[in-house]
C-alpha cells in the first residue's frame, strides 16, 4: 500500500483514484465524443472499492460531458478515439487522459491495474506506431505509472 499526495488537492491519502472507462458492448467505446456509458471504478490502496456503470447523456454536448467527469471527481479517463478540442478540454480539467485505447473493457482495466497497459495491443489501429500526436502522448505517459500504483502525474508517492 502506498501513500500518495493528490497533486490537485495537496492531500496525502491512501492511494485513492477514481478511474473512468467509456464502454460499449463490453469493449472500450470507439469514440469518446459520443460514448453513452461510463464505467466508474474507485481504487483505494490497490483494491477496487467502487465499480458502477453510469449513463453519459448524449444530448449534453461537450461541455456537460467534460463537466460531468469533473463533478464525478474523475482522476483518470481511459477511452477510445477523442477529437482534439475535447481532449484539450479534458486535459484542462485536470483529468489524466488515456485515449485511443481499444479492446475488452475488463481486460483493459486489469492491464491498467497491473501496469501492463502500455502493451501496443491496447492501442487502436494506427495509433501504436507513433503516427498520431495524441497516440504518442499516451505512450509517453503510460510508463510512469508503475511505482505509485499506476496513476500517472496527478499522484505522487510520499
Amino acid at each position, binding site marked *: 500500500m502506498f501513500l500518495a499526495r493528490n497533486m490537485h488537492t495537496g492531500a496525502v491519502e491512501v492511494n485513492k483514484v477514481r478511474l473512468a472507462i467509456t464502454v*460499449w458492448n463490453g469493449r472500450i467505446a470507439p469514440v469518446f465524443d459520443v460514448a453513452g456509458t461510463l464505467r466508474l471504478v474507485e481504487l483505494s490502496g490497490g483494491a477496487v472499492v467502487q465499480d458502477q456503470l453510469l449513463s453519459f447523456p448524449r444530448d449534453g*454536448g461537450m461541455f456537460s460531458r467534460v463537466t460531468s467527469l469533473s463533478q464525478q471527481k474523475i482522476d483518470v479517463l481511459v477511452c477510445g478515439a*477523442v477529437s482534439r478540442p475535447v*481532449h484539450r478540454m479534458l486535459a484542462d480539467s485536470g483529468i489524466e487522459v488515456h485515449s485511443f485505447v481499444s479492446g475488452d473493457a475488463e481486460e483493459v482495466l486489469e492491464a491498467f491495474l497491473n501496469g501492463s497497459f502500455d502493451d501496443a495491443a491496447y492501442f*487502436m489501429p494506427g495509433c501504436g506506431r507513433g503516427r498520431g*500526436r495524441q497516440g504518442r502522448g499516451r505512450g509517453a505517459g503510460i510508463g510512469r505509472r508503475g511505482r505509485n500504483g499506476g496513476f500517472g502525474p496527478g499522484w505522487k508517492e510520499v
Partner: protein
Amino acid sequence: MQRRQVVPVFVYRSVSAIITAYGREESVEQTKAILESISDGVFTVDSNWKITSFNRAAEEITGISREEAIGRECSEVFRSSMCETACALRESMASGKPVLYRSGYIVDSDGERIPVSVSTAVLRDENGSVLGGAETFRDLSEIQSLQKQLYETYRVEDFVSRSPSMQKVFKIIPAVASSPATVLIQGETGTGKEVLARAIHSSGSRSGEPFVAVNCGALPDTLLESELFGYARGAFTGAAHSRQGKFEAAGRGTLFLDEIGDVSTAMQVKLLRVLQEKTITPLGSNEEIKVNARIICASNKNLSQLVESGEFRQDLFYRINVVKLDIPPLRERLEDIPQLLEALLKRHSFALGVDVKDYDPQILPLLMGYNWPGNVRELENFVERAVVLSREGLVSFGDLPPEIIPEKSVHHSDAGTLRNARADTEKQMIVQALENNRFNRTAAAAELGIHKTTLYRRIKALGISLPSSDGRSSNATNTT
C-alpha cells in the same frame, strides 16, 4: 444555414459493383481492381464485425494501413460518430437493405474529425446466406473545403462581406496593400476598422513586419505623445529607462492610429510633422529617428465634417486622406448578416469546444430586422453569448437578448396606452442616439434629424439621465 451535402451517385454504384462481384471467383481480380481504383474508402466485415478487406482509399482517409485494419473490430478502425447509435452497417445487416448517404464524422489518429458520408449493404454468398457487410465512405473534407473557397471570395483575411460597397473595397485592397500610401478608414464603432487595417497589412509585403495599433482617443495628450514617440531616460521624473515609441516599434510594418478624429489640435500638429518629415524625436531626446512604418488611420467620425467645423486640421486631413475606405454600418449591409452569423458561430463554437450547429430559422428575421447600433462587434457579442447559453443544437428564440425582440417597447410600457408606448419608443431612440454618439448632444440630434434644442427638451421631458462626462467634455479635454 445548414449546407446540403453533395454525395456522388457512384458511391452507390461502387457498393453495387462490390456486391455483384463479391463471391464470384472469376470476378475476384475485377473486384480488387475496382476497390483499388475508386476514391471512396471501402471496407468489408464478417458476421463478427471484423474487418476482412480495406481498400487503398480507406487507408488514405483513415490513415490506417490495411495490415493494421484487417482482423480488427470495425468500430475500432472506423471510429465514427455513428458506430454506437446509428451504425448503417448494423442496419443493413438487420434489414437486408442498403443504407445510403448517412453522414457523420470519423476521428483519425491525430484527433481530427473528418466529415464522411457512408453507404452500406449486405454481402451474401451464392446461396443467399449472409457473409457480412460492405461499407463505402467518402471524405467530405474536400467538398467542405470547396464550400470554404466559395466563402473566401467574400472575405479578405478576417473581413467578411458580400455587400456591393465592401466588394469595391475588397477589389482595391491588393493595390492599396502593396503601396506605401497612408490610408484613412472611416466607419461607425464596431464596423471592423481595425480588422480591415489588419487585412491590408496582411495582404501586402509588410505582412511579416509588426502591426502596431494605438487607440488615440483613449489617451490624454501627454500619454499619447510618449506612447507614439517614446521617451529618453530622464525625460521626466520616474523615466529611469528610455522607452521605444509605437512609430519606432512598428519598424517597417504598419502603425494603426485608431480614433484619429479624437486627438487634440496640439497633437494633430505633432502628427502632421511626423507624417511630413517622416522622423520622430522621442521626449527628452535630441536624436531624430526615421519612421519607416506605413500609417493607417481610422475614425468613427466624419473627418470632413470635423475639418469644416474647425475641430480637425485640414492639412493633416489631406495628409492622411490619401486612400479613403468607408465601411458601411451593418444596418446598411444586411446581406452580410447570415454569413457573419455563420462565421462567428463556427469561431465561437470551436473556441468553446461546444456543438452549437446553427440558428433556429425563426429567429433570423429578428436578427435581420434589428438595427445593430454596435455593428459587427455587437453581433459578435450576441453570438458569443448565444453559444455560451446554448452549448449545443440550435441558437433559439430564448437565447435572444431583449433588445433584439421588437415587441419589447410595447410589452414594457407602464400603462399600456398609446402615449406611453410612444414615449417609451422615443426614449429608447434618444438613448440609443446618445450612446451612438458618446453622449454628444449635437451629434445625437443630427442623427435623430431634430434640432439640438428639441433634443434637450425631450431629454428633460422624458427624464433621461445623462452621464457626467460626455462627448463634449471628452472632446474638450482633448483640445486643451
